[in-house]
């Protein structure tokens, strides 16, 4: 509907009009988040200094969290912020500070051919996947629930309890293993 047709100062705020504005705002925010994701990814894989690459990665993960929000999963968006931005990016930043001094050699492509060849490889993969995504018709099945957080918890502790426990063990072993690997030879 056209809001200027309505009479009165606040007359244009009808239910339909509000829903239309909300949809438009959601679309605009989505486009911004899409741009943030892509720009963050470009910074993450192109920045000359690794600290900037990590900052770009954090930006990209922020955008991905917003994408999850648009995919009806605020829970996953929160976990993305907590785990990726809060833990993984900080860990990588620590590793850069510990193991990659800034006065080291260039981080860019090695050799003259590496950059263009890498670009061609990545471009071919991307174009192939986009072609597949655009040209395939996916069968949409009717939903049996809305994917609430409560149901996720119930499924994690019933249907997927075995995987849940295994992931816990994998995380535990990863923590212990990384401590042992990083500590090895430290007393030298």
């Amino acid at each position, binding site marked *: 509907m056209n809001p200027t047709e309505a009479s009165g100062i606040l007359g244009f705020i009808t239910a339909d009009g509000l829903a239309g504005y909300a949809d438009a705002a959601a679309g605009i925010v989505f486009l911004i988040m899409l741009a943030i994701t892509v720009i963050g*990814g470009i910074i993450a894989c192109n920045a000359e200094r690794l600290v900037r690459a990590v900052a770009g990665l954090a930006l990209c993960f922020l955008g991905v969290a917003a994408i999850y929000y648009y995919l009806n999963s605020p829970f996953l968006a929160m976990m993305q912020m907590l785990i990726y931005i809060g833990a993984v990016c900080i860990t990588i930043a620590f590793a850069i500070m510990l193991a990659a001094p800034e006065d080291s050699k260039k981080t860019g492509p090695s050799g003259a051919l590496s950059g263009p060849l890498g670009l061609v490889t990545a471009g071919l993969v991307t174009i192939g996947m986009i072609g597949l995504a655009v040209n395939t018709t996916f069968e949409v099945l009717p939903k049996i629930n809305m994917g609430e957080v409560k149901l996720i918890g119930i499924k994690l502790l019933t249907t997927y309890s075995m995987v849940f426990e295994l992931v816990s063990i*994998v995380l535990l072993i*990863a923590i212990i293993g990384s401590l042992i690997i990083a500590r090895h030879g430290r007393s030298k």
Partner: protein
Amino acid sequence: MSILSLHNNLTTYLILAAVLFGMGIYGLVTRRTLVGMLIASELILAAASINFMAFNRFTAPDPTVGQIFALFIMAIAAAEAAIGLSITIAVYRNYKTVDTEDIVDLKG
């Protein structure tokens, strides 16, 4: 289809995931340091998660399954980051470099 309704379209998310995947591949191929390669691999994992979540939202009958799978991807990615970074630190301690061209002891 309006540009403002792109967020209700499966193809948008699939293209975004493909672009992120391509950037990850590019970074993985061209980066010269181990930490840079690790950052690129995180991009690839994020692309895979977006793909799972997109199909979960638009086509799957049970929307909890994709979220649980994305959670598992996150857990595995965190474990992978921890192990990869500790290996990086161990390599740096022994070789005093994380440049992939200097770590060629196994090269025949």
